């Protein structure tokens, strides 16, 4: 056992230099992508409305991956999990995404402070005056309070991300198990703060696109998507790093199997929450609740159906077997598939609010995704360039390496 551990601590586990080129490339691609999007939307598209909605989809995509990773890190410490010590650093690195995302949120925030209601109907002050429901909600849904909340969210997330990443990275050098205890102590209040901020962010940024509508389970719905996205991304990253020669000994088929299991579990959890939300609204059949699904069951009905099949039924049937989860190629396929479906899920949450009569798929959906993911991923790469992809001094690492699924 001891020699296995020695093997895993290799200096080249630091992705470091190899990543810098890639990160710069991503940043450049990101800038080009965003530029193209603005051009397409202004020249051929629906202007500010189209741009901001598509931008929000891409932003939410990166945001959910990041938040899912943050939750993963928190929960590993909270439960003192052993198996995950070999893959936790990857999630930790993704939590650094909170920093570029704070910057990427600025366009939305600034436009709202300038009074734009391209995205949120509740920011149209004149219109709100004539709308009893929006007037009633205006104490919460107004530009000032919205911005304050957004700032709080980012402060909490960046604070938590930095706390856990840098403590963990310092442990690589210092090797002190006390640092693990410290992170475990922080994980409980951290989880609490996370659950509140993540739910309210989901309400603020995604649910308030339909300001008349409300669903108390919506925060959990988005959270379920966060974890699907996080596990898919972690699986893809692990497979990619291994193909590049990293983590060869530290992450074995058992860990991949576990990532697959979690991805599968949260795919089911997503379906459970999605159905619960739909089911209760269907049963109660109250206009102010059904309106949201009405927008998604007319022109968008094929997308809704595809989402139910693609996001749940197909993976449920074909990703259940342990043999599939233990096969790197198949795991990779279903992880990519899960990410695509997660993107579609967000698209399906956001876009019907812009246009319920017609589907809105466009080239700019791709360019904006490249743009936001590029800037997000590139910044993460640069921030993490000196970090090891393995928490080499984690006191639970031997346990993780010895771990076997029954």
């Amino acid at each position, binding site marked *: 056992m001891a020699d296995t551990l020695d093997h895993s601590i290799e200096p080249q586990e630091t992705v470091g230099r190899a990543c810098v080129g890639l990160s710069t490339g991503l940043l450049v691609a990101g800038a080009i992508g965003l530029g193209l999007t603005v051009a397409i939307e202004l020249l051929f598209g629906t202007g500010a409305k189209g741009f901001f909605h598509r931008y929000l989809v891409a932003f939410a995509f990166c945001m959910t991956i990041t938040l899912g990773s943050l939750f993963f890190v928190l929960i590993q410490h909270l439960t003192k999990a052993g198996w995950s010590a070999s893959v936790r650093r990857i999630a930790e690195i993704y939590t650094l995404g909170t920093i570029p995302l704070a910057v990427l949120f600025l366009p939305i925030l600034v436009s709202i402070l300038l009074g734009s209601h391209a995205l949120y109907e509740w920011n149209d002050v004149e219109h709100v005056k004539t709308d009893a429901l929006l007037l009633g909600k205006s104490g919460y849904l107004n530009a000032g309070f919205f911005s304050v909340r957004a700032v709080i969210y980012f402060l909490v997330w960046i604070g938590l991300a930095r706390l856990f990443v840098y403590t963990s990275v310092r442990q690589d050098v210092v090797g002190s198990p006390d640092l693990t205890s410290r992170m475990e102590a922080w994980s409980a209040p951290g989880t609490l703060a996370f659950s509140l901020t993540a739910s309210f962010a989901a309400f603020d940024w995604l649910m308030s696109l339909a300001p008349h509508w409300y669903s108390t389970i919506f925060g959990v719905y988005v959270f379920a998507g966060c974890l699907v996205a996080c596990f898919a991304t972690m699986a893809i990253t692990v497979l990619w790093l291994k193909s590049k020669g990293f983590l060869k000994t530290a992450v074995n088929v058992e860990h991949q199997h576990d990532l697959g299991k979690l991805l599968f579990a949260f795919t089911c959890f997503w379906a459970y929450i999605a*159905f619960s939300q*739909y*089911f209760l609204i*269907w*049963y109660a*059949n109250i206009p102010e609740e059904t309106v949201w699904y009405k927008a998604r069951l007319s022109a968008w009905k094929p997308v809704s159906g595809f989402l139910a099949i693609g996001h749940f039924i197909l993976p449920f049937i074909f990703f259940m077997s342990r043999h599939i989860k233990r096969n790197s190629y198949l795991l990779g396929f279903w992880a990519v598939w899960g990410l695509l479906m997660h993107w579609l899920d967000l698209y399906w949450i956001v876009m019907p609010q812009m246009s319920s009569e017609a589907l809105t798929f466009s080239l700019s959906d791709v360019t904006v995704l490249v743009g936001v993911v590029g800037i997000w991923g590139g910044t993460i790469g640069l921030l993490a360039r000196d970090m090891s992809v393995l928490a080499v001094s984690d006191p639970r690492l031997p346990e993780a390496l010895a771990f*076997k699924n*029954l």
Partner: protein
Amino acid sequence: MAHKKTESKSAAQPQLTGVVAEFETPDAVLHAAELVRDAGYTRWDVHTPFPVHGIDEAMGIRPTILPWIVAFMAVSGFTGALLLQYLANAVFYPFIISGKPTFAIEPCLPVCFEVAVLLSAFGAFFGMLGLNGLPRHANDLFRAAGFTRATSDRFFIAIDAADRKFNEAESAGFLEKLGGTHVQKLFSDPAGDQFPQVLHTLALISACIAITPPVIVAARRVTDQPFPRLHLIQDMDMQVKKKTQKTTTLFADGRIMRPAINGTVPRGGLMTDTRKFAGLESTSGLMMVADAPAAPAAAVVDPAVAAAEREKRPWVKTVPVPVTLDVLKRGQERYRIYCSACHGLGGEGDGLVSLRAVELEQPTWTRPVSLVSEGIVKQPVGQIFDTVTNGVRRMAGYGDQISVEDRWAIVAYVKALQRSRVAPIADVPVELLEKLKAEAAAAPPVGGAAAPAVAPAGAGGLGASPAPAAK
């Protein structure tokens, strides 16, 4: 019996059923297991106090088919639940509940999910038991010395004597060679391997107790009972709610049935259409039935005066509801139910009740009027309607029993009966005429007791009636 005894005695001779060996560490047992596997044994097992990684492989155990059993159970649970709900909601009891479609997939899914989970849990549990050949009430291993340590700190390999490769001398030596200690031979229980008698008795008793309730229920269902059924489960049979005609302390007047509040009209109670509801062109200057409290005063009015007053009321002369063949058929049916007993099927006042009353010379019996007599033929339909609704002289009113529409249908049918008396022969369909002529030739008609076949056809005109139609 005696034969059986000897047989069980011979079974009580201890038989060699296997060998068992003890190992100290998981690694030792793992390694030994590999060698046993490689030696080609198939009926053997390893007993460890905790799960040992890699033991499945070391023992050469093929992946279990249990997942497929579970999958099968889950799928059948899901589809079974779906089918059940479909049949119940869409086929057997298609009720619309809170405006939902009788069958929709949404409300079915939770039930399908639950049943799928339940059945897959059963499949996993019972499938596991079945595949392992459990439950067993005894195992020869339990009598091996020191075997209880399999639950704390020792590891065992046991080879079954039923194994094709098993050899009494060699197998024990083989285990010893693999590093096993305390190698023991296993023998069947000299006391016999039977299921304990007391358990048999207990099982029998509990089976009897279990089937008692269904037997009682079944017996009650197929036999007559002089007593009302046992009311064990009250459900909602006894409620605090008040039923009609009961009293209450809730209202000052103690009545549970409340009169309509002043100035309100109950649903369906708005009867402003006097043509339809009273058979009158207008009610001005008339005292209506609704003003019932005034009735005692009317009793002192001279009947002759009242009758004369009644004749002069502005009765409607045409039926105020559309008259179709369906309405007439309905009228015929209702007439036969409500009127024919007295007025006769043909309306001539020769109903069975009346005939019988006359036969018995009942002194108080008033003979019903012939509805096809000249006096009634001349009456406006509104007056006949009023007769049906409120009664006349010795005839009781039927307004409470027959709906307004049905009353008008009856009136229309009475008019059809009357019309049939004066219908020209040309009104009778040719084929019916032929038939009736043939019948008349076969048997000379008697009295007017026969009912007309179908009212509008007016077959009655052919009888012994004095109608001018009989050309």
